[in-house]
């Protein structure tokens, strides 16, 4: 029990794709944002990537997981996504992380993931998010270009570039007189002034809710709303899914969380229709979990974790990056999966390929100080 994963093969390195990537020139995107779409889902609570891809804790490697490539096997909670894998529209980076190390705090880890900075900045100083810095270097963007969805306004999109934030549950109906009076009342309070103006603008552009549509669970409402916006002017959407902190009874809790993620992605796909072909969905988590099982059939906070990428724009069907193995000596700090690549490098290459952001801007403006390295060949 104490070494749930150490019976596995010690290592199996899967090399980076060596195929040359046709670099897209920024000029092709002069009238950007264009048709490409990016969805970033933050998985709050630290997803156990080892289990998602090896199914070692929930079921054992030979029980119920679906083989992907002879080495990695898909957790049954993700089995709804198998058609995407088979269609070459899904891939994983199994051992990635932000630069965050050692204290293993969810909250600091999530801040760093959303801020997209390195360890050179004080965590408190990391206010703005990397999707907002992307907007700042993106040509032709408008305020509808990027959207944070859900009750929470995502930190990853926070910053000076205008972006939208809305929950599919929210409504606002004002008489013209009330609207005028409120705008006077809010005039001297920038927070209220901007929030209410934005709310009014968003509500005016929403499709009226179809009365026959029953309310779905929150993650599906978010996905549906995201697809609706992405089918219009929005090109970047972000929201979060919680429920990944599987300290106990992981077999059940992780299966449910993975099921929600699967349904979220499939709802996006269905809602996007033909636009799915130009969409990239990246599901990222603050860090991975311990290689060993803890005393409660769960896992504790770790370091390296997995990222899931799906979408019609993805060159899928293969696992990305290396795999450091789970042998005692290969673990980070003797306990966690060793990250082999910075998760931001994948995001950077996606933005390069899909929004035409030049390498040096990615390394200096969006992810300051990051060496984005070789193209992982993530996107077709």
């Amino acid at each position, binding site marked *: *029990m*104490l070494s749930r994963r150490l019976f596995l093969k010690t290592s199996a390195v899967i090399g980076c794709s060596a195929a040359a990537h046709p670099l897209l020139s920024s000029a092709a995107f002069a009238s950007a944002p264009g048709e490409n779409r990016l969805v970033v889902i933050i998985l*709050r*609570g630290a997803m156990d990537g080892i289990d998602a891809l090896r199914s070692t804790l929930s079921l054992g490697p030979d029980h119920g997981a679906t083989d992907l490539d002879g080495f990695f096997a898909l957790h049954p909670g993700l089995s709804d996504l198998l058609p995407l894998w088979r269609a070459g529209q899904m891939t994983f980076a199994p051992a990635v992380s932000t630069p965050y190390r*050692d*204290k*293993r*705090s*969810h*909250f*600091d880890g999530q801040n760093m993931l959303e801020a997209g900075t390195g360890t050179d900045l004080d*965590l408190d100083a990391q206010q703005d998010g990397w999707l907002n810095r992307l907007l700042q270097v993106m040509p032709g963007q408008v305020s509808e270009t990027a959207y944070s969805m859900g*009750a*929470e*306004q995502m930190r990853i999109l*926070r910053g000076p570039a205008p972006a*939208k*934030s*809305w*929950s599919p*549950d*929210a*409504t*606002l*109906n*004002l*008489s013209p*007189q*009330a609207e005028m*009076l*409120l705008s*006077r*009342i*809010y*005039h*001297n*309070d920038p*927070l*209220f002034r901007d*929030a*209410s103006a*934005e*709310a009014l603008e*968003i*509500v005016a552009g929403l499709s009226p809710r179809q009365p026959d549509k029953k309310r779905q669970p929150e993650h599906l409402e978010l996905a549906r709303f995201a697809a609706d916006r992405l089918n219009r002017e929005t090109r970047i959407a972000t929201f979060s899914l*919680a429920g990944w*902190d599987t*300290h*106990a009874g992981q077999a059940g809790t992780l299966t449910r969380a993975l099921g929600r993620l699967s349904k979220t992605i499939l709802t996006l796909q269905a809602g996007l229709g033909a636009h799915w072909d130009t969409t990239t969905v990246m599901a990222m988590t603050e860090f991975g979990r311990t290689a*060993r*099982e*803890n*005393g*409660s*059939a*769960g896992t*504790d*906070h770790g370091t390296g974790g997995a990222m899931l990428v799906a979408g019609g724009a993805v060159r899928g069907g293969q696992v990305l990056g290396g795999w450091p193995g789970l042998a005692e000596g290969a673990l980070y*700090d003797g306990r966690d999966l060793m990250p082999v690549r910075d998760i931001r490098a994948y995001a950077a290459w996606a933005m390069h390929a899909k929004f035409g952001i030049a390498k040096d801007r990615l390394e200096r403006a969006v992810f300051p100080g990051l060496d984005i390295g070789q193209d992982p060949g993530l996107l077709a």
Partner: protein
Amino acid sequence: MSIPYDQLAAIRLGFGLSPRQPSPGDPAAVAASVARAAPDPDGITLDRMREWQRTGNRLARAARKGGAEAGRASREYRMRLGSRHRADILARFARAVDDPGGFGERLVWFWSDHFTVAGGTLYTNLMMAAFVQDAIRPHLAGRFADMMYAAETHPAMLRYLDQGRSVGPNSIVAQRNPKRAGGLNENLAREMIELHSLGVGAGYTQHDVEELAALLTGLTYHPKHPGVFQPKLAEPGPEEVLGQTYGSPQAVANFSDIRDVIDDLATHDATARHIARKMAVHFVADDPPQALVDRLAGVFTDAGGDLAAMNLALAEAPELESHFRQKLRQPFEFLVTSLRALGADGPQVSALKPGVLNQRLLRPMAVMGQPWGLPDGPDGWPEASEVWGAPQGIAMRINWALTHVAGLAGDLPDPRDFLAHALGGTASEAVAWAVPRAESRAEGIALVLASADFNRR
């Protein structure tokens, strides 16, 4: 603008003004008013929980064996407990609406959030209510160490942070039954240091977390077993946490070692700074003046973590006035402050029907970003104004003020009177100009409730 102290304290430390009752008029009276937030003798407690869980489990076992009668009995019992939980939520609203100072109930919210536990299922919801009653309310003006000890060892916390399933690798249970031996679970140990005491910026390491996890083994809860400690699960000592040694190799760790380590964590210098800053952030400003933080930290240290001294220091702080309205009320506060301003009283709030509670309070509160008892993680609710001031949240506040007030408060007052009751002398010119120009009584009231003046504190 110079604000009379009673209004200043009610707006900043309480749930705003009420037309029915005056607010305490000086810092000593505000600090003393915290006593009103004492445990409710009829409230949900751990002792009641044990009984309910034993009965509920017995009925559920009988129902699984079959028979329509047994199934109905189990369902009805669960429904009764569910209505007990709803009554507890209403009581939280009612006590806050009825408290003249409001500071005590605000502290209940603050400390329950500092020691976050979440609900979600019938028994976790009820246990969360017991947690507030058992671990938070008795210590609002007591020693921080006592509150921390009560919180960390409460079954609600043991479950929420998985401590009940942490087993010492060399414990008696593990040695007797190596096959199903468990192991450590670090969740509570980590948050105890990172969130509850020293703070993440303090100098501690993964080693301290692991040693504390070993030391905490034995803490567990079962409704049938008395207490919350099973020595059989405990890892033998000693463990070293932050350079201090607890327990000894001869003996299995015992409960007093856990008390000792919590006492040391609770009185650590880093804890004084962490708690001082957290109180300043919650009650004064998202980015509070360092002088205030230093002063509160000094009070915490000098008074040995006496929270009565902290409460008084806050009530006396000149920053209450100098940083007026730099905080945005969280959704629960916004709803309570609205009900209070509308002249609702406790019994009226307690009598709200379940459907009204859901439709007019809990669902809107969730869309404003604060689903009852379900924060995203053990760090609790965010503090930053930008988080609560997101367009979707502000829209929901405006919409609530327009559509739900009449259904909660009945007859609406004249908006001009309401403005005076709700904001006292603190209304801005723009609000005073706009309210009389509203098209209807309901809209006039809504303008006050939706104003930045009312939503800030």
